[in-house]
Structures are given as C-alpha cells and as structure tokens.
C-alpha cells in the first residue's frame, strides 16, 4: 500500500494525469447525454428515469441533436474529451440515435483523438445484442449495471436480469469494446463480509481495469425508502457499513484495483476520464431531461440544469435546444466549495493552485478554510496537507460529509 503521506507529496504528478482542473481554461469539455427511460424501475433508484412505451425516438434524436447544436453555439471552440451516455438506460436507445448525437458533437466541436465515449448499459440480452452496433456508432467504453453476482440479491434489487446474463454482458463487452467497467451494489441486507469478499473475488476475475462499487443507499422517494422505514428489511448499521467499506478498499488494493475515488476503482491510467472531469471540476455540458452542467464563459462559471420532465424537455429542447432556466453564475465561494467537495473524493486529493483557480477570484482560496480545524483533522489522521495540496486518507474519505462542513469557513 503506498503511504498516504507520499500520496500528498505526489499530488502534482497524480493529478496531471486524466483531466486536470482548469481543463476548461484549455477549452476542454465533457458532454453528458441523459436518456431518461428504463424497462422497469428499480426500487432503490432515484435517478431521473421513467418507464415509458411508445417513445418517439426520432423526435428524441432530433432534440438531442438540436441541443448539442445549442450548447456548441454557447461554447464555441472547445475540445470535447469525453462523451457519456447515462440514464436511465441509454443502452435502450437505438445505436442510430447514439451515432447521430456523436456525429453532431463531432460536427460542432473539435473532438480529441483519444476521446472517451461511454455508454451505461443494462445486462439484458436485448441490449447485449446491440453492443456491436454501439461500437460501430463510436462508443468505446461501456459501464454495465451488474449490481450483484447472485440471483437472489438481483431479485431483491428488482433487477430484470440474471447473474448469468450479467456475466454474458461482460464477456461480450470484453470482446467488443476497448474498455469496460461494471457496477456492483454492496452492503445489501443480510450480506456478510465474507460473502462480499467472495463476490469481489469473482468480480475481479470478470473485471477489466475499472469497477464501481457502491454501498446501497436508501434514497428518499424510492420504494426501498418506504419498506425500509416500515422495517421490512434493514441494511448494515454504520459500524458494519464502515467495515464493508474498509474491507472493499483492502481487497481491491490487493487485486491491483485501488480506489481512486470514494466508490471507483481502477488500474493506474484507467480511470473514467469523464467522471474525472466532475471530480476535478472541469467543464461539462449536460443534455437531456434533468441533466446538469457546469460551464465557464468569460471566466464565470455557470450551472445549467435541464427540465426534469421528459415531455417538457423534449418539447422545449426540440425547439430551442434547451429546457433550462437561465442561472446566475456561481460565487467564488460556491466554486471553491464545489471543487473541494468533488476533489476530496479523489484519493489524490486536490492541489491548492487548482482550488485557487476553481474559486477564480485571483487570490488564495485558503481563506475559505478554517486552519485550526484543518490541523485537527490532520492530527486525527484524516487528512494530509502540504504546500501542494490536500488529500484525505481512507479514514477521512469515510467521513467526508461531516469533514467538509467542519473545515469550511463561513461564506
């Protein structure tokens, strides 16, 4: 295990790797495309996803294309480093739609040679059959929602596929795409640490060089929330949840797939470039119902948020290219807070100079931090700081939500 102390010293070298902060300055951009439909709604999921029949795909395609054009007009001269089809279940869209969107992006922006184009896919047979066509359309990476490697748990999670199908999807992805990743949800009800350890062993056999491992979260406004409140099932309490997390870190480290972010594991250099844009507070455009973006124009950072409702978005974006309300630019403090909040999720942490740049007010952004508190969290072994930047230790990341407000000063 590399020493955490060294990690901090190495901040600069680690961070220059994928999409460093300030990608926007250099005109770099990520494009997120949200497809809001699924075959069925999973009981734990609070994403903007809907079950719908008779989708007029031609109209949707046109709206996405129109929307790409709209954002390209607002952000001329940028270079696109990554495209991400998320959802919902974007693997349900026809490969032609994906192709139309990708080529519209290529038409409107310069696209880098090593562009990463990811598609979220559900591992049902229908979708697996389309993998090749998506690859032809330009997709070069898939992220498969496997969630669990046994049928009992898949059933509990309300998934429409079996473990066998999931494995097939992985096998196919391995053949078809340059890179693939898959998601697992753990700390499920009744799950034991040892069962999870075994599942991780099987997962690493199936994995390429990237894995997302999420602890099951009970989100409000989901069927799970209700049944959990009613006591129909329980999830590991905090202490056990912490053990699950720690175990996951150790096991994956041993497999050479260390966590580079709270829930994401990769071999060096195989991080998701798209997601790294988020965590390093780069610019990204959000297209589709409920999609969010962060775009820098004339030194100001603007948040964008498309209308959530699929029909309204389709209607407005089809005409105007967007269904977002105009938003005020973010304050320096907001920008700092967002950059720190995202940056501290990364094992490599975040460099002071990048935080300063993110805040964008031409001074040291450290004024926003409470230095006595910062010292306390270092003394506790939760954070490491040096002249270059700040990174959290594994124990620190485990407490991130409490640690952030603790070290931040008033606005």
């Amino acid at each position, binding site marked *: 295990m590399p020493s955490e102390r060294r990690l901090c010293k190495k901040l600069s070298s680690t961070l220059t790797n994928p999409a460093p902060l300030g990608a926007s300055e250099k005109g770099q951009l990520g494009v997120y495309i949200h497809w809001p439909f699924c075959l069925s709604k999973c009981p734990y999921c609070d994403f903007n996803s809907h079950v719908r029949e008779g989708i007029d795909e031609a109209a949707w395609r046109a709206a996405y294309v129109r929307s790409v054009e709209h954002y390209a007009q607002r952000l001329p001269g940028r270079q696109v480093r990554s495209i991400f089809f998320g959802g919902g279940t974007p693997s349900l869209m026809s490969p032609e739609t994906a192709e139309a969107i990708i080529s519209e992006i290529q038409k409107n922006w310069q696209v880098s040679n090593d562009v990463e184009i990811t598609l979220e896919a559900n591992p049902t047979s229908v979708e697996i059959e389309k993998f090749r066509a998506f690859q032809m359309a330009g997709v070069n990476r898939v992220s498969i929602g496997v969630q669990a490697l046994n049928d009992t748990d898949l059933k509990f999670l309300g998934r429409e596929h079996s473990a066998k199908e999931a494995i097939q999807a992985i096998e196919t992805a391995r053949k078809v795409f340059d890179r693939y990743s898959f998601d697992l949800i753990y700390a499920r009800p009744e799950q034991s640490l040892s069962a999870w350890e075994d599942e991780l062993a099987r997962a690493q056999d199936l994995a390429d060089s990237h894995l997302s491992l999420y602890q099951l979260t009970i989100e409000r406004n989901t069927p799970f929330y209700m049944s959990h409140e009613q006591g129909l099932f329980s999830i590991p309490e905090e*202490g056990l949840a912490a053990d699950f997390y720690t175990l996951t870190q150790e096991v994956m480290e041993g497999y050479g797939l260390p966590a580079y972010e709270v829930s994401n594991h990769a071999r060096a250099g195989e991080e998701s470039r798209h997601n790294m844009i*988020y965590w390093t507070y780069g610019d990204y455009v959000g297209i589709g119902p409920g999609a969010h973006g962060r775009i820098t124009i004339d030194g100001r950072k603007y948040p964008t948020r498309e209308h959530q409702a699929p029909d309204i978005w389709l209607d407005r974006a089809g005409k105007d290219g967007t269904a977002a309300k105009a938003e005020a630019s973010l304050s320096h403090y907001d920008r700092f807070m967002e950059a720190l909040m*995202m940056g501290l999720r990364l094992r490599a942490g975040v460099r002071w100079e990048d935080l300063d740049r993110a805040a964008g007010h031409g001074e040291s952004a450290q004024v926003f931090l409470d230095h006595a508190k910062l010292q306390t969290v270092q003394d506790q072994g939760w954070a490491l700081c040096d002249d270059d930047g700040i990174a959290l230790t594994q124990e620190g990341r485990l407490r991130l*939500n409490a640690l952030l407000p603790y070290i931040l000063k008033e606005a």
Partner: protein
Amino acid sequence: MSHTLEHIRNFAIIAHIDHGKSTLADRLIQTCGGLEEREMTEQVLDNTDIERERGITIKAQTVRLEYTAKDGITYQLNLMDTPGHVDFSYEVSRSLASCEGSILVVDATQGVEAQTLANVYMAIENDHEIVPAINKIDLPSADVDFAKQQIEEVIGLDASGAVPCSGKTGAGIHDLLEAICTTLPPPKEGDRNAPTKALLVDSWYDIYLGVVVLVRVVDGTLRKGQRIKFMSNGKMREIDRVGMFTPKHVLLDELGPGEMGFITASIKDISETNVGDTITDEKRPCAEKLPGFKPSIPMVFCSFYPADAGDFEKLRESLGKVRLNDASLHYEMESSQALGLGFRCGFLGLLHMEIIQERLSREFDLDLIPTAPSVVYKINMTNGEQIELYNPVDLPDVVKIKTIEEPWIRATILVPDEYLGGLLKLCQDRRGVQEQLTYVGSGSNARAMLVYRLPLNEVVFDFYDRLKSLSKGYASFDYELDGYGENDLVKLEIRVNEEPVDALAMIVHRDSAETRGRGMCERLKDLIPRQMFKIAIQAAIGGKIIARENVSALRKDVTAKCYGGDVSRKKKLLEKQKKGKAKMRQYGNVEIPQSAFIAALKMGDE
C-alpha cells in the same frame, strides 16, 4: 350624571377559572345598555388576541354601567372583571382592594373549585359583601342546589341569597342586578371637599390615549386641568383627560368620591405610575397615603435568548414595550456561553411566562429560546451573608455555602375521590408535606380537599399538567407562597466534553439529582447529532459525576455516488450544514447545535 355615594356600587366578579365571569359581565353590560347589540362580542372585555384565543381573562377590566332598579333609583355600577387563573391572582387582589363587594360566580355544573376558595377568602379578607351567582343554569347538567350546598359547606357562606343565572341565555341577570343594588354596600363615606385622595388601581399604555391611569377616588375630586401628585415618587402632572369605560372610553368632567374611572396626564414613562400609589392634589395634598397594594412578586424565573443572536437589541426593546402594560414582568440582562446574550425574566407563574413568550413572538416576531423555569433561592453563606439566587449558574462555590433555602407554597387541591390516590402520589413525589385531607360535599358529590406544602420548584415544571392529566381534568389547584425552607439542595451541572453548559444548570434536591441528571444526559444524547468526534455528556454535582452518556463518534458518513448531476444537490446540503454552524456552540473540538440545548430545555422534565 352625579351620583350620591348611596347609589354607587363598586364590585368585582370573582370565580374559579372558566366559571363564566367574563360572559356574565357581557350580559350585565348588555342589559345596562353599555354596548349595543351589534357591538357585543363574546367576552367583550377579553380584548387582547391572547385572551380571545385562549378564552381566558389575563387582565382585570373595569366598566361603569347604569342600572335603574325596581326601587326606581338609577345606580352607578363599577364592575371589575377579574382573571380566574392562579397566576393572575395578583390582579384579583388589586381589584378586590379597590371595591367593596364581590359577585362570586360558581359554575352550576362544577361547584366550588380551588380558586373559588382562594378568591372568596381574599374577598372576605377585604371585608367584602358577597353575592353568590350560580351560573350556567342553562346546561342540562346544572345542579343549583348542589352548588348552593357546596357554597355553604365548603366555603361556609350563606347561599340563601344566591342568584341562579346564565351568562349564556341572560336568565337571572335582572335578579343579579337587583341583588347588586340591594345587597352590596355603597362605598364608604368619602368627603367631596377634603383634599383629593385617590387609589392608583392600574395603569397601561394605550395607543390612542397614551399612559392611562385607572383610579378609585376616596376623597375629593379629580378634574381636567388639575395638578396632581403621585405620592410614592413625588412626580407632578396636570390631568388632561378624565373619563370612564362603558366599556368604550367616555370623557367626564370629574370623578368624585367613591367613583372609579381613568385619567391621563401626558405621562411619558409608565414607570412613574406605581399601582397602589396614592394620587393627590399638588397644592392641597392629603395627609396620609392609602395603604395601597402588596407588590407583586415574581415567582418563576427563566431566561429568554434570541434564537438569532442579531435579535438581542430587538428583544430588549420588545421586553420594554411588553412591560408597558404588564408591570408584573421583571427582567434583567445576562449572558450565557451556550446561548449568547439574553434576559433573565421573572413571572407570576408558568402561564404568565408562556403568555409573555407568546406576546414577544407574535407582537414582535421574535424567535426565543427560554431556559428551564426556576425559582429564587436564598443562599446562606458561611460568612453569615445571605444571597438571593436568581439563576442557578450563579451559585457560589459550594465550600462557601452553609445552607440553601427554597421557596415553598401552600397548595389547595380539590379532587373527586377516585383520583385522590394518583394525586397523593404526585404530591409525595414532589416532596410535598401533607397538612390536611378532608372531604367536602356529600354523597356522590363528595370531593377530597387536600392541603399540601410543596417546594415551589417542584411545581413550576409540569405539576399543573400532571395534576390535570392524573385527574382527567377534574382536579382544581390553587396556591400561595408560604415562606422559605432549608433543604438539601445542590447545583446540578450538565457538561459536554468536560465543559459546563450554563443554560442547563439547575438547582435540585439531592435525592432527585441523579434522576434528573440522568434524564438530561439521555435527552441530550438523543438530541446531539453524532459527529466525527466522540461527545461525552455528564451530569455533575460539584466535582462528582453522577450520570454520563456518550454520543459515539461517526465512523462513516460519505455519499456513495457523486457525479456531475449531484454537485448542486450536495452543495445545498453542505450549505445547510454550514448555515447551521452559525448557531453552533463550541465544546472542546465538537460543535453542538444550539437547537439541541433548546430541545432539551423544551422537553422539560418528564
């Protein structure tokens, strides 16, 4: 409009709470034509929002009526409607001291209750003639004979002249008016030509009239333009208005002996007008002051802190304004480590405290944090000094203390037999000493009458609520202060991460210290949100820890998924947490939200 003394009747309407005093006053006003039909509302004299909403009288009100009796004579009636709740018995005592007769209202469905007793005894002490009125006879469960019997047996008052009536339907109102004229006495002889001598009954601030002074003239007259002197402080003023309430204010030329009414005199500072003071003529003063009233003594104390520290000045101003028409409110600035700057306030009782708090929040839009109610202790120091302790935080070092005395009350409780057991236990648990247990009434109407001495401190929390719930609302309760008594009292301190939380300090009996301390620790444990650090909560007496709880440290609190679409939402959450920090108090390396202390205080003492 001048009435000879013979034809004036000054009287108070007294009763247990809710027996219908104000409703009866409505009918009297209406029958005498003081207000027209369209001007009447229910309990027209309860004119503040809080009185109207709660359906109780807080402030005594005086109204002048004219009634032509069967003997053909037109009488001037000065009616004083009084509050029934025990907290405001000071208002009753003042009213009683300003007049000569009382109507004792007894609810025909309830009979005599604890405050019926307390108030009627007060009337008797003031040498009042008393007309019992058996009210609410319109109700199906009304039992006039039973009520009469109780008046005779429990109070020992002749009920043969009692008037059955209904404030609701107006039945019996003429009989009551006749009884007022024939049974109640006129004012005692006053000399119209003697130097002016008038009792300052009450004063308040009115937005139209300014400071209004309610008076009862004994000798001489009060007229517009007259220069008067307040004898307690020597302040001199010129009367600019003389008048009466009908209940509308009506100007008069003068007020003569035996009459009640108001004056205004361009008074800017209400503190010049001390209730119970004697008003006399500046040039021709009277020789002697009237005996006046006993001063009101605050019994219950608590501190108010603004929830938003920026509201401190506003709180100061607002308290000043509230005091303008509530002289029983006392306050003094103080500062607390846990809650910031605030005021230590003294009240007549718990309801009074609640009402002041409500007025502050409604009339002045203040969000307040009240600390636990407490009483005034007397600390006898080893050097012979005696200190009055208004706030438990200020308790001197224990080694310098010889003894601590606490205030006691003498409580009278009337309760149906079936609930007696529960109430005896309650009194016992609250360190009560039984003085008397007798039965009043007979047969199925028999009720136990309990007299207990109790430490006031044990009563200020939730005694009244407990009493009501244990007796399904049937018990009634009244109390009066009954001196101080030494006791084994200790200061219970609550500490968070070794640091005392001043706002939570309390003085308790040693025997209940552990239970109370444990209760508070357990409550705080549930109220303080878990943090990255372990939080130790302790209850201590002196240096000795008697209870402890820990809020364990958070081991894990991290959002599993945070991508481009989550930034705004997560940031909002973070902002909310940050905002909350403004109301955080630092204890060691942990920050405790003020709201936890507030909630701990609110939950009182279960």
